[in-house]
């Protein structure tokens, strides 16, 4: 269960959240049940990315309560927060790949953090990169890959640990139609296996092709939930 209860987030001009600054999320409340799927829509700058940041614990709300996977986010230790993050897969809008690591090592990162064996990592990472069409580019650094290829690496990294919650920020933005279709098949398959999914997008065609409940945000406020 993901629950936002009267959540507020403010940013100071220097980028740090503070009580004396601009509201980027205001009085936001909604529930997403376990295994649910939500589109998170809204214009650019509406606050979609900030809502996702609150969900993957990169920001703490100034007010209100957030429960992620049934855990009260404000009442956990740093260690518990780290372990909770391991259950969350995130596809960032800017990919956030480590430039000094190969595509293979980027995808393997979550498994190595979870202390999985190299044998298991080799098997699962190889399989997933093959599935996203990058088996011939395992050793390439991110800067040697196209934008679409980098996005596929980022997606593979987000799902490699079979997360309980998958968050994606414009995941099809750099993909061609065929790759976007494959990605959505992967995400819906994970959702069917019980992963809760939240995808932020302004691509309404994508939303229409994969009908699901939608959270619409405008100027930091939730204006539609259904």
């Amino acid at each position: 269960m993901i629950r936002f209860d009267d959540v507020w987030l403010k940013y100071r001009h220097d980028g740090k959240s503070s009580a004396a600054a601009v509201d980027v999320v205001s009085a936001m409340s909604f529930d997403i049940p376990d295994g649910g799927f939500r589109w998170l829509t809204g214009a650019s700058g509406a606050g979609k990315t900030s809502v996702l940041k609150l969900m993957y614990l990169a920001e703490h709300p100034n007010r209100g309560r957030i429960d992620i996977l049934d855990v009260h986010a404000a009442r956990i230790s740093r260690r518990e927060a780290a372990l909770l993050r391991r259950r969350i897969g995130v596809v960032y809008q800017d990919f956030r790949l480590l430039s000094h690591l190969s595509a293979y090592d980027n995808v393997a990162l979550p498994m190595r953090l979870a202390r999985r064996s190299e044998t298991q990592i080799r098997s699962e990472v190889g399989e997933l990169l093959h599935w996203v069409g990058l088996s011939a580019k395992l050793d390439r650094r991110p800067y040697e890959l196209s934008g679409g290829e980098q996005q596929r690496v980022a997606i593979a990294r987000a799902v490699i640990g079979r997360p309980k919650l998958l968050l994606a920020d414009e995941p099809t933005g750099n993909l061609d139609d065929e790759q976007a279709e494959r990605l959505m098949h992967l995400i819906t398959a994970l959702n069917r296996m019980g992963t809760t999914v939240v995808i932020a997008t302004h691509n309404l065609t994508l939303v229409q092709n994969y009908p699901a409940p939608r959270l619409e945000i405008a100027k930091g406020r939730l204006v539609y939930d259904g």
Partner: protein
Amino acid sequence: MMAKAQRAQAPGRRKRVDQLGLRSAMADRLLPSLVGAMSFLAALAIAGSLAAATLARHWRSDSGAALTVQVTDPAAPAATGTASRLQAVMGILQASPNVSDPTQLSADAMNDLLKPWLGQDAAQLNLPVPAVITADWTQPGPPAALQSALDAVAPGTLATTGAAWASRVAALTGSIQASAASVLVIVALVAAAVISVATRAGLAQRREAIEIIHGLGALDSDIADRFAFRATWMAATGAAIGALAALPALFWLAQLAAPFAGILPSAAGPALPVPLWASLPALPVIAALIGWVTAQVTVRGWLRQLA
């Protein structure tokens, strides 16, 4: 296809993955060099402290134990009894449990002592030269009671030891050792500061990578340990090199100090004292400990700024 992909990765998998790219973020020359210089200074400070202690011990045992008694007008009768003043004084010295081996300086020895002031044959000048008795003083303190006893039979007799000079040597040694300890503390603090600065530089350079790994669920210890391993290895390596580089200087200083410590020249050259040999291997261990603790504290403090 899969097998081909896995074969392509096989060589890379054998090598430990530098997830944060620290091999380039924390330069492997500057930090070991600076820690090596600190280790070199620490080795010299330890050697200086040990040398001061050894020399002081040697000098104290020599000077503190030497008793010199000057008997004026030695042939005159003593204040008590019928013996001469010299015989009376000698009798007291021989009977004292704190004095051993009292010996009157011969005329030749006295002549040698006075030669610089009185010329080749001082005895012919017929001066009232006191008799001088040397002995070993076995007590640590000054010979006050002995002085009183000597005054009773031969007033004006002077009994002295090197205790006052030895106490000054002890004070000097103590201050040298305190200075050496201060140098060691300062060296340790500077080493910690250098490691902290290098770690912060690494953190700044790898900020984005750390944020990504943090976001993927890395524990603070996962990140701090990586920095700490790197800092530990570099500090230990630098300290080992610094300690080895100090060896020629230590042997040279040992050679200079040997005559003052009563060490006879040997064909094999000067030997370093055992405590110094034991201290030198401890330098890389201590540097490693400083590296580990400093990096852990620095990284964990820095990570607090992340959510």
